[in-house]
């Protein structure tokens, strides 16, 4: 049975990862940056699940791992947003390039 090769999944994941990375590094809105990071995590999840099926030792491990990842990602999104809101309250902005207190 000819099925979709592993490479195809990996390619998809790679493309999504790159898009997420690009978004995270170039977008100015902090919310979009957060969501781009979610996209990157998703791309990784695809890899995990793909390797769960196609690999030397196939099994459930990859899927379970991706479940944990999703959990952590959800927590991260929540905390990230909370920080964003606190920040917005103090600085009245969510623009990433105005958040340069490290420099000052």
């Amino acid at each position, binding site marked *: 049975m000819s099925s979709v090769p592993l490479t195809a999944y990996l390619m998809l994941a790679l493309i999504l990862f790159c898009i997420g990375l690009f978004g995270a*590094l*170039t977008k100015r809105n902090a919310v979009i940056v957060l969501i781009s990071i979610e996209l990157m995590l998703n791309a990784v999840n695809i890899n995990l699940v793909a390797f769960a099926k196609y690999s030397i030792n196939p099994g459930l491990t990859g899927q379970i791992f991706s479940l944990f990842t999703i959990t952590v990602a959800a927590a991260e999104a929540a905390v990230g947003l909370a920080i964003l809101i606190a920040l917005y309250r103090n600085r009245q902005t969510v623009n*990433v390039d105005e*958040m*340069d*207190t*490290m420099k000052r």
Partner: protein
Amino acid sequence: MLQMSWLIPLFPLLSFILLLLFRKSKSESTAWIGVLLTGISLVMSVGVFLAVWQGEGIKTEGTWFQIGERAITMGFEVNPLNALMLVIVSLVSFLVHLYSKGYMHGDERFPVFFAYLGLFSFAMLGLVVSPNLLQLYMFWELVGLGSFLLIGFYYFKPEAKAAAKKAFVMTRIGDVGLFIGMVLLFWQVGSFEYDEIFASVKNGDISSGMLTLTALCIFVGAVGKSGQLPLHTWLPDAMEGPTPVSALIHAATMVAAGVYLVAAMYPLFQASEAALTVVAVVGGLTAIFAASIGLMQKDIKRVLAYSTVSQLGYMMLALGASGYVAGIFHLTTHAFFKALLFLAAGSVIHAVHTQNIEEMGGLWKKLRITGPLFLIGALAISGVPLLSGFFSKDEILASTYADGKYGLFWLAVIAAFMTAFYMFRLFFLVFTGEARGNEKGVHESPSVMTFPMIVLGVLAVVAGYLNTTWFGTFLSDYLAQGPVELPHGDHHGPAWIPLVATLAAALGIGLAYLIYQKGTLSRDWITRSFPSLAEVIYNKWYIDEGYDQTVVKGTRGLSKLGVLFDRYVVDGLVTAVTNGVQGLSKIGSRLQNGQVQSYGTAAIFGIVILLLIVALTGGYFS
């Protein structure tokens, strides 16, 4: 007796140490420590000399330290040459100690002076008994130290400071020559021992070029120490030291060390015709050159200093002209009469408190002992028959002539004439005529000062009979026992040579008499006839100035250049590097704009580079 001869140098060393411990003592009886200990050395030296006269000799050595397979040895050796030197050195040293007791009376660093004298005597005696070149070199430097300390004894005088420094540095230049020669010889022979060096010279193990090179290097050392051309300028300046020091170091002993060195290494020189010729030419030129400067000096000690340089030139000339015995002979007689002259000059200075001969005059009547002794010295150095200088100078002339160096022979004769002239110019100006300066309260020196002069006066008269054609050539027979094969035995040239020498001396004395005593000839007769020549001679041929302009200025200029180089190039390079780093970090800090995304981009670049490396090389650890 001979086994104990290594103790000879140690007594003065003991004196040095004891006197340093007593340096705060105000009592002048501390001087007796020095006198006594050098006296013991003198007695032992005479004993050793007598033993060697009987044909004995000794050489003892032990390992000093060992490097790899080679042992560096130390020890002592007594042979005819250095036994003679031992006597000369310890005798003059003893007499100068005694004399200084009176001369240095009232000086607040009285014990220190004697300590330095002790150090010098130790070094000089140690130099003489050295059985190898390395040990000789070490004492050679220590002798320089003693000389330096004594010249700079009046440390608060700027002239003394400059003179001490100059003496040390100028002789150091020579020493480096000796050092190079010694080291080169070591790699040729594999040892510093005289015996082994001479053996390989004899066997022809050393190529002739190397022989000449090493001999010349060693001769450079002698040039420095003995004040030969062109390193003579320190010796007249060294007269800033106390006068007994000039007598001891800069007339009788240390400056003769150069001559001694050439004599001790004579087989090496004999093996190289070129080296001998150089020695002779340098000696001859120094003799006449220094004599010419002596003609016009006004400082009593400087006249004597130039005279010393000139006489040392004679000795070198003798050695260079194969007159080994003549050179040593002159060294011996010169030690006595020049020490006498210096001590007498010191006595004069002690009396009138000036060194300028223009301010003296008519002292003959006031200094009834010093005057005649000075006259004896002057007659001896001028080569007046029957005094010691006559015999030794005659031999030098004879051997020069016999060696076929006719040009140098006539040069030496002219120098003899000049010597006679300036010595008697000095004598007449100081002792006869009217008193030109303030001479109130001038009195004869105490007996502790006159006694050494009398001893030296006697020796200045009789030392010549050590080696005469009339009574026997004791000295050359004696020296023939030594390790050096005496060059062509008989040196007694034509009978007219003594006549010529005597004539030259008589002419010189007569001319001085006519000018300075009788006044028949005007004093500035020569100065007026050859003004520019006189100017040049009066300024010592501008040698000092020449060195100042070339070597000193050059060195200082190089040093300044070095400082600039250090500041601008070396430090500049460093500054350039730091500026570069700073510039880079400025650029870097612009990247640090505080925006997380930029950092992220940078991090991605880093990851990409690492991945590239892994992708291209296949991984370092795989």
